[in-house]
Protein backbone atom coordinates (compact mmCIF):
# COMPACT_ATOMS: atom_id res chain seq x y z
CA UNK A 1 0.00 0.00 0.00
CA UNK A 2 1.41 3.32 -0.99
CA UNK A 3 1.27 6.47 1.09
CA UNK A 4 -1.30 7.85 -1.34
CA UNK A 5 -3.67 4.98 -0.64
CA UNK A 6 -3.22 5.25 3.11
CA UNK A 7 -4.01 8.97 3.00
CA UNK A 8 -7.03 8.34 0.80
CA UNK A 9 -8.39 5.70 3.19
CA UNK A 10 -7.84 8.05 6.12
CA UNK A 11 -9.61 10.98 4.45
CA UNK A 12 -12.41 8.81 3.05
CA UNK A 13 -13.20 7.18 6.38
CA UNK A 14 -13.12 10.56 8.11
CA UNK A 15 -15.49 12.03 5.52
CA UNK A 16 -17.94 9.13 5.68
CA UNK A 17 -18.00 8.86 9.47
CA UNK A 18 -18.28 12.59 10.12
CA UNK A 19 -20.83 13.29 7.39
CA UNK A 20 -23.08 10.59 8.83
CA UNK A 21 -22.52 12.05 12.30
CA UNK A 22 -23.34 15.55 10.99
CA UNK A 23 -26.81 14.50 9.97
CA UNK A 24 -27.53 12.21 12.94
CA UNK A 25 -26.05 14.06 15.91
CA UNK A 26 -28.59 15.26 18.45
CA UNK A 27 -26.63 18.34 19.52
CA UNK A 28 -26.53 21.12 16.97
CA UNK A 29 -23.12 22.55 17.87
CA UNK A 30 -21.55 19.11 17.61
CA UNK A 31 -23.12 18.69 14.19
CA UNK A 32 -21.45 21.95 13.10
CA UNK A 33 -18.05 20.76 14.36
CA UNK A 34 -18.49 17.43 12.54
CA UNK A 35 -19.26 19.42 9.38
CA UNK A 36 -15.99 21.28 9.91
CA UNK A 37 -14.11 17.95 10.02
CA UNK A 38 -15.80 16.84 6.80
CA UNK A 39 -14.80 20.05 5.01
CA UNK A 40 -11.20 19.88 6.21
CA UNK A 41 -10.84 16.26 5.06
CA UNK A 42 -12.33 17.24 1.71
CA UNK A 43 -9.63 19.84 1.31
CA UNK A 44 -7.12 17.07 2.03
CA UNK A 45 -8.62 15.14 -0.89
CA UNK A 46 -8.18 18.21 -3.09
CA UNK A 47 -4.50 18.33 -2.11
CA UNK A 48 -4.24 14.66 -3.10
CA UNK A 49 -5.74 15.46 -6.50
CA UNK A 50 -3.10 18.20 -6.96
CA UNK A 51 -5.51 21.13 -6.90
CA UNK A 52 -3.67 23.18 -4.30
CA UNK A 53 -5.47 26.43 -5.10
CA UNK A 54 -8.90 24.90 -4.65
CA UNK A 55 -7.81 23.14 -1.46
CA UNK A 56 -6.71 26.48 -0.04
CA UNK A 57 -10.03 28.04 -1.11
CA UNK A 58 -11.86 25.16 0.56
CA UNK A 59 -9.92 25.65 3.80
CA UNK A 60 -10.31 29.41 3.98
CA UNK A 61 -13.80 29.85 2.58
CA UNK A 62 -15.65 26.72 3.69
CA UNK A 63 -13.85 25.67 6.84
CA UNK A 64 -12.92 29.19 7.85
CA UNK A 65 -15.89 31.22 6.66
CA UNK A 66 -19.07 29.23 6.30
CA UNK A 67 -18.61 27.02 9.36
CA UNK A 68 -17.84 30.04 11.53
CA UNK A 69 -20.94 31.76 10.15
CA UNK A 70 -23.03 28.67 10.92
CA UNK A 71 -21.62 28.42 14.45
CA UNK A 72 -22.34 32.11 15.05
CA UNK A 73 -25.92 31.72 13.94
CA UNK A 74 -26.31 28.59 16.09
CA UNK A 75 -25.13 30.58 19.11
CA UNK A 76 -27.56 33.36 18.21
CA UNK A 77 -30.61 31.18 17.67
CA UNK A 78 -30.46 28.15 19.95
CA UNK A 79 -29.32 27.03 23.35
CA UNK A 80 -26.15 24.96 23.34
CA UNK A 81 -27.56 22.24 25.53
CA UNK A 82 -30.75 22.01 23.51
CA UNK A 83 -31.40 18.60 22.02
CA UNK A 84 -33.58 17.81 19.06
CA UNK A 85 -36.66 15.82 19.75
CA UNK A 86 -36.81 12.69 17.67
CA UNK A 87 -38.88 12.92 14.55
CA UNK A 88 -40.64 9.61 14.99
CA UNK A 89 -39.19 6.34 13.76
CA UNK A 90 -41.44 6.17 10.72
CA UNK A 91 -40.04 9.30 9.04
CA UNK A 92 -36.50 8.35 10.02
CA UNK A 93 -36.84 4.85 8.58
CA UNK A 94 -38.37 6.04 5.34
CA UNK A 95 -35.73 8.74 4.86
CA UNK A 96 -32.98 6.21 5.58
CA UNK A 97 -34.48 3.74 3.09
CA UNK A 98 -34.76 6.44 0.43
CA UNK A 99 -31.19 7.63 0.83
CA UNK A 100 -29.66 4.15 1.12
CA UNK A 101 -31.57 3.00 -1.96
CA UNK A 102 -30.38 6.04 -3.87
CA UNK A 103 -26.80 5.47 -2.74
CA UNK A 104 -26.89 1.80 -3.77
CA UNK A 105 -28.36 2.68 -7.16
CA UNK A 106 -25.68 5.30 -7.81
CA UNK A 107 -22.84 3.05 -6.64
CA UNK A 108 -24.03 0.18 -8.84
CA UNK A 109 -24.19 2.56 -11.80
CA UNK A 110 -20.70 3.91 -11.07
CA UNK A 111 -19.20 0.42 -10.78
CA UNK A 112 -20.93 -0.65 -13.98
CA UNK A 113 -19.78 2.24 -16.16
CA UNK A 114 -16.50 2.06 -18.04
CA UNK A 115 -14.75 5.40 -17.73
CA UNK A 116 -12.27 6.18 -20.48
CA UNK A 117 -9.62 8.80 -19.94
CA UNK A 118 -8.15 10.95 -22.66
CA UNK A 119 -4.61 10.27 -23.72
CA UNK A 120 -3.56 13.90 -23.66
CA UNK A 121 -0.84 15.04 -21.33
CA UNK A 122 -1.85 16.46 -17.99
CA UNK A 123 -1.69 20.21 -17.57
CA UNK A 124 0.13 21.62 -14.60
CA UNK A 125 -2.29 23.80 -12.61
CA UNK A 126 -0.39 26.79 -11.31
CA UNK A 127 -1.59 30.17 -10.16
CA UNK A 128 -0.48 31.92 -13.34
CA UNK A 129 -2.64 29.62 -15.46
CA UNK A 130 -5.66 29.99 -13.15
CA UNK A 131 -5.45 33.78 -13.19
CA UNK A 132 -4.97 33.93 -16.94
CA UNK A 133 -7.92 31.59 -17.57
CA UNK A 134 -10.20 33.51 -15.22
CA UNK A 135 -9.59 36.79 -17.02
CA UNK A 136 -9.23 35.56 -20.58
CA UNK A 137 -11.78 36.04 -23.36
CA UNK A 138 -10.24 33.27 -25.44
CA UNK A 139 -11.71 29.81 -26.05
CA UNK A 140 -11.00 28.43 -22.58
CA UNK A 141 -11.38 31.70 -20.72
CA UNK A 142 -13.82 32.25 -17.88
CA UNK A 143 -14.32 36.00 -17.84
CA UNK A 144 -18.12 35.87 -18.13
CA UNK A 145 -18.80 33.50 -15.17
CA UNK A 146 -16.15 35.38 -13.22
CA UNK A 147 -17.98 38.69 -13.68
CA UNK A 148 -21.37 37.09 -13.06
CA UNK A 149 -20.16 35.51 -9.83
CA UNK A 150 -18.70 38.82 -8.66
CA UNK A 151 -22.07 40.53 -9.23
CA UNK A 152 -23.77 37.62 -7.43
CA UNK A 153 -21.45 37.96 -4.43
CA UNK A 154 -22.12 41.70 -4.25
CA UNK A 155 -25.88 41.13 -4.49
CA UNK A 156 -25.74 38.41 -1.82
CA UNK A 157 -23.75 40.66 0.50
CA UNK A 158 -26.16 43.58 0.14
CA UNK A 159 -29.16 41.24 0.38
CA UNK A 160 -27.84 39.62 3.55
CA UNK A 161 -27.29 43.02 5.17
CA UNK A 162 -30.75 44.28 4.17
CA UNK A 163 -32.52 41.11 5.29
CA UNK A 164 -30.72 40.75 8.62
CA UNK A 165 -30.75 44.36 9.76
CA UNK A 166 -33.40 45.40 12.22
CA UNK A 167 -36.51 46.79 10.57
CA UNK A 168 -37.42 50.39 11.31
CA UNK A 169 -40.13 51.21 13.89
CA UNK A 170 -42.77 51.59 11.19
CA UNK A 171 -42.11 48.12 9.83
CA UNK A 172 -41.80 46.06 12.98
CA UNK A 173 -45.40 44.91 12.99
CA UNK A 174 -46.26 43.04 9.89
CA UNK A 175 -49.91 42.27 9.10
CA UNK A 176 -49.36 38.51 9.24
CA UNK A 177 -47.80 38.71 12.66
CA UNK A 178 -50.75 40.61 14.12
CA UNK A 179 -53.38 38.09 13.24
Amino acid at each position, binding site marked *: *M*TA*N*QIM*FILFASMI*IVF*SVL*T*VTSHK*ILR*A*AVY*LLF*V*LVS*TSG*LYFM*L*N*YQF*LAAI*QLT*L*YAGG*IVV*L*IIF*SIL*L*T*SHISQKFESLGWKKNIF*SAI*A*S*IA*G*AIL*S*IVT*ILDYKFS*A*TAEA*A*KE*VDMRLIGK*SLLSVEY*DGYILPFEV*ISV*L*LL*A*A*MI*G*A*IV*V*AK*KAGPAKTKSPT*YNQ
Partner: protein
Amino acid sequence: MNTGIPLQYFLILATVMFFAGVYGFLTRRNLITILMSVELILNSVNINFLAFNRYLYPHKLEGMFFSLFVIAVAASEAAVAIAIIINIYRRFTTINVEDVNEMKF
Protein backbone atom coordinates in the same frame (compact mmCIF):
# COMPACT_ATOMS: atom_id res chain seq x y z
CA MET B 1 0.27 10.96 -9.34
CA ASN B 2 -2.85 9.34 -7.88
CA THR B 3 -1.26 5.94 -8.17
CA GLY B 4 -3.36 3.12 -6.91
CA ILE B 5 -6.63 4.94 -6.37
CA PRO B 6 -9.27 4.28 -9.03
CA LEU B 7 -11.65 7.04 -10.03
CA GLN B 8 -14.57 4.97 -8.78
CA TYR B 9 -13.42 5.29 -5.16
CA PHE B 10 -13.74 9.06 -5.32
CA LEU B 11 -17.18 8.76 -6.90
CA ILE B 12 -18.39 6.27 -4.28
CA LEU B 13 -17.10 8.51 -1.50
CA ALA B 14 -18.95 11.50 -3.00
CA THR B 15 -22.09 9.39 -3.36
CA VAL B 16 -22.07 8.40 0.30
CA MET B 17 -21.54 12.02 1.31
CA PHE B 18 -24.32 13.21 -1.01
CA PHE B 19 -26.87 10.76 0.36
CA ALA B 20 -25.87 11.53 3.93
CA GLY B 21 -26.77 15.11 3.05
CA VAL B 22 -30.06 13.99 1.51
CA TYR B 23 -30.89 12.00 4.65
CA GLY B 24 -30.19 15.03 6.82
CA PHE B 25 -32.27 17.22 4.53
CA LEU B 26 -35.22 14.86 4.89
CA THR B 27 -35.04 14.23 8.63
CA ARG B 28 -33.85 17.49 10.17
CA ARG B 29 -36.40 20.04 11.34
CA ASN B 30 -34.00 22.83 12.30
CA LEU B 31 -33.23 25.40 9.59
CA ILE B 32 -29.52 25.57 10.37
CA THR B 33 -29.05 21.81 10.21
CA ILE B 34 -30.91 21.77 6.89
CA LEU B 35 -28.43 24.37 5.66
CA MET B 36 -25.58 22.15 6.85
CA SER B 37 -27.01 19.22 4.89
CA VAL B 38 -27.11 21.40 1.76
CA GLU B 39 -23.46 22.27 2.32
CA LEU B 40 -22.65 18.54 2.48
CA ILE B 41 -24.44 17.97 -0.84
CA LEU B 42 -22.64 20.85 -2.58
CA ASN B 43 -19.31 19.65 -1.24
CA SER B 44 -19.79 16.10 -2.51
CA VAL B 45 -20.57 17.45 -5.97
CA ASN B 46 -17.31 19.40 -5.87
CA ILE B 47 -15.37 16.20 -5.19
CA ASN B 48 -17.02 14.65 -8.25
CA PHE B 49 -16.09 17.58 -10.49
CA LEU B 50 -12.47 17.56 -9.38
CA ALA B 51 -12.07 13.78 -9.66
CA PHE B 52 -13.53 13.75 -13.17
CA ASN B 53 -11.34 16.67 -14.16
CA ARG B 54 -8.17 15.06 -12.85
CA TYR B 55 -8.74 11.51 -14.04
CA LEU B 56 -10.58 11.87 -17.34
CA TYR B 57 -9.64 15.30 -18.74
CA PRO B 58 -6.37 16.32 -17.11
CA HIS B 59 -5.52 18.69 -19.98
CA LYS B 60 -8.50 20.92 -19.22
CA LEU B 61 -9.59 23.03 -16.28
CA GLU B 62 -13.40 22.98 -16.57
CA GLY B 63 -14.03 20.91 -13.44
CA MET B 64 -11.76 23.07 -11.33
CA PHE B 65 -13.43 26.31 -12.38
CA PHE B 66 -16.88 24.81 -12.02
CA SER B 67 -16.19 23.80 -8.43
CA LEU B 68 -14.66 27.22 -7.80
CA PHE B 69 -17.96 28.80 -8.87
CA VAL B 70 -19.94 26.24 -6.88
CA ILE B 71 -17.98 27.26 -3.78
CA ALA B 72 -18.71 30.94 -4.46
CA VAL B 73 -22.43 30.24 -4.93
CA ALA B 74 -22.45 28.14 -1.74
CA ALA B 75 -20.84 30.97 0.21
CA SER B 76 -23.37 33.57 -0.95
CA GLU B 77 -26.21 31.10 -0.39
CA ALA B 78 -25.04 30.48 3.18
CA ALA B 79 -24.79 34.23 3.87
CA VAL B 80 -28.30 34.97 2.60
CA ALA B 81 -29.78 31.87 4.27
CA ILE B 82 -28.31 32.78 7.63
CA ALA B 83 -29.62 36.34 7.32
CA ILE B 84 -33.09 34.94 6.62
CA ILE B 85 -32.79 32.47 9.52
CA ILE B 86 -31.84 35.25 11.94
CA ASN B 87 -34.77 37.32 10.71
CA ILE B 88 -37.12 34.36 11.18
CA TYR B 89 -35.78 33.81 14.68
CA ARG B 90 -36.40 37.46 15.50
CA ARG B 91 -40.00 37.21 14.38
CA PHE B 92 -41.02 33.74 15.58
CA THR B 93 -38.34 33.05 18.28
CA THR B 94 -37.86 29.61 16.79
CA ILE B 95 -36.17 28.17 13.71
CA ASN B 96 -38.05 24.90 13.64
CA VAL B 97 -39.52 24.56 10.16
CA GLU B 98 -42.78 23.15 11.46
CA ASP B 99 -43.44 26.20 13.66
CA VAL B 100 -42.65 28.68 10.91
CA ASN B 101 -45.69 28.41 8.71
CA GLU B 102 -47.18 31.88 8.62
CA MET B 103 -45.53 32.86 5.38
CA LYS B 104 -48.00 30.65 3.56
CA PHE B 105 -50.88 33.07 4.02
